[in-house]
């Protein structure tokens, strides 16, 4: 296997909170350009894994290499912002600001303080924001108050912000959990299309197996912090799934 292709290399990573194991000695190799769905029952460690990968979960043991560099390399916020981008279930937009500022927030790591202050009065690099919003189909809402948008629209604003940020890896924590099925498909459609166009690597946790099958190339099943299966999406069978979820139920 060519090591240069491995954008993420996770070895024997364990995390626990108050004695409860969240991840137990997990190892993963992820290649550039893969679209990976993390599935599994609630409390399986999906969010913890994403937090480890986004470097916001610092306690724990094991080894993590991102694009050939250890986590300490990414302590510089600008370097980290160029490498890793995060999207969650809505709620991480500033509702009191107009859409344009929330989109441009993806650029804050590159901006000086003066430029960021100025931008709140006269939006800087507005063209870039407009382009990004056009790609998610929200160009006409550029000046609206973010809090007044619907859930699906807000999630598309978050996508536009990722477009402006241009990270190499996108970590999505339940990106469609609070949306109805039509909106959820819409958001996943745009997300996976953009990832493909930008040649990014996507790792998303999901509740729905159907979405995993439809939009992703590789599926990882987690239960109680441990790997249950790790397969190309084509090899996933109902037996795998019933094992993943049934085991979870009997443990409760």
């Amino acid at each position: 296997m060519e090591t240069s292709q491995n954008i993420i290399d996770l070895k024997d990573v364990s995390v626990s909170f108050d004695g409860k194991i969240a991840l137990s000695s997990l190892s993963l190799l992820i290649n550039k350009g893969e679209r990976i769905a993390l599935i599994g029952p609630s409390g399986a460690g999906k969010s913890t894994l994403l937090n480890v990968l986004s470097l916001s979960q610092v306690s724990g043991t094991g080894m993590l290499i991102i694009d050939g560099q250890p986590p300490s390399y990414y302590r510089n916020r600008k370097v980290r912002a160029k490498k890793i981008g995060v999207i969650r279930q809505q709620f991480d937009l500033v509702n009191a600001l107009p859409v344009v500022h929330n989109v441009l927030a993806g650029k804050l790591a590159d901006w000086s303080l003066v430029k960021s202050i100025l931008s709140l009065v006269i939006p800087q690099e507005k063209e870039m924001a407009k382009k990004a919003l056009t790609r998610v189909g929200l160009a006409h809402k550029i000046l609206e108050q973010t809090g007044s948008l619907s859930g699906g629209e807000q999630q598309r604003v978050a996508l536009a912000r990722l477009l402006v940020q241009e990270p190499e890896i996108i970590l999505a924590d339940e990106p469609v959990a609070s949306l109805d099925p039509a909106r959820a498909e819409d958001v996943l459609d745009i997300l996976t299309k953009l990832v493909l166009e930008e040649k990014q690597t996507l790792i998303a946790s999901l509740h729905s197996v159907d979405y995993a099958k439809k939009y992703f190339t590789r599926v990882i099943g987690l239960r109680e912090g441990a790997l249950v299966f790790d397969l190309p999406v084509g090899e996933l069978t109902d037996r795998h799934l019933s094992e993943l979820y049934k085991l979870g139920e009997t443990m409760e």
Partner: protein
Amino acid sequence: MKQSLRFQQKNILTLLLVLVFLWSLRVIDWKEPLLHPGGGATFLQIIEAMLHPNLSPEILLLALDSAWVTLTYAVAGMTIAIVIAVIFGVLASGVIQNSQHPLSMLSKRFFRGLLGFLRAIHELVWALLFVSAFGLTPYSAILAIAIPYGGILGRIFADMLSDVKKEPIQSLQSTGASKWQLLFYGYFPLVRANMISYTMYRFECAVRSSAVMSFVGLGGLGYQIQLSLDDLNYEEVWTFVLFLMAIVIVIDGWSSGWRSRLSKGSSRFSMLSFLLSLSLVIGSWMYLYKVEHASFFTLFTDENGEYAKKFFLSLLGIGEETPTFFSAQSWIHTLQLTYDTLMMSIIAIGMATIVMLITVVPAARNVANGKLTMSRSFFSWVSFLLIRASYILSRAVPELIWAMMIIFIFQPGILPGAVALALHNFGILGKLCAEVIEDLDERPIRHLSSSGASHAQILLYGVLPSVLPKFLSFILYRWEVIMRTTIVVGFVGAGGLGQQFKLSMSYFHYSDITLIILCYLLLVWLADFLSELSRKAAK
């Protein structure tokens, strides 16, 4: 497009308010020296005295005694205020009026207006009027507290009652309950927790008000502070101020403990608190009756009646050849003072806001512990504690007492009044606004931090846009309160309408007083109206 206009509307309003503040600074004559010749030295003396207050046994005993007097007046005043508030509050809420009756709307309006009038005039103005009418009895202080506090409490009670959820009331109605039964089985139980919690908050304020009552010659902590200030004995001043702070802090802690348990239903703590309040009420009234020999009914002797009659008649200008309020000259003079007073209030809120904005971020608990900004340092805890301590000091000392100290330092005029008002209000604003930051949704801020924004950028993009509308509404609300208080700081020579009020009072020019009160009411209503308007625009 409409949405972006709203965003701009807020910015425009903020800009407008900043310009008004800058405009108000013109009133001060900056060319003249602002400080007394020895003002700087006095300032240092006062600060130095703060570090070693006089803790000799006799002073402590005196302070304890005065603290008790202050507390009894506050409790007695609040007792009457609660009675006023419950009766008029229920009437003003319209819940016992028959909504089909054509007069119901009218009576609701009438009682709302009455409550508005009661709270428009500051308690110290009432106190001065009552002392002139009834003499130096504790009841002048108690009634002076009871009337405005009854007005404020009544207004809030009325709002709470009319905002009650309709479903439980309708289901009670369907069982055939009468209006009175609805009140006792529906409305009161539903708003009980909120009523108690607001009353406790007001009780804390009443203690401060009661402390300044002494300014008109009625005993208590404020009286001792004034005596010590007259003797330039700053060490004693701080002892009394510390006692006042202690009462305020104890009540604050008690009420927040009670409040947090109220939401969880009945508990031993609530029961004990209730018994404690009851015994405070009984104890205070007993003390007034037994020790101060102040029976409520001695107020209504013939002699007092004569005095009161004479006083109120001269307020109306009866017996004078040309009452002040018929002279154009006096109107122009008083309106000039009114304008100065308005400017004083704007300078005061402006200064309080500036100090608050500088200090508020490190004063938020979630900033101090690093949860919001994702960075932790020992230094942030130190600055948190220092700023919070300054907030407590600031709000525990009433404006009037700040003013009494400030006039030793500044030349008389608008500025000392504004500084005193700002000193008292930045602590209140700071506490309120720090709580807004503490209640922020942390998720957007964490995201900004994870996408590489610096601390300053997080503040600009994540914190400020979310908190500014709330800050603005607190600032406007405090401005209303400051407007009511401008007259009080004037009493000690800090300029504006209040200074004139005190002068006219000492020369027995009672029809002047009527004119000044008219202008004062005008200001208070103007402030309420403007702030309501701006708050709507900022929403």
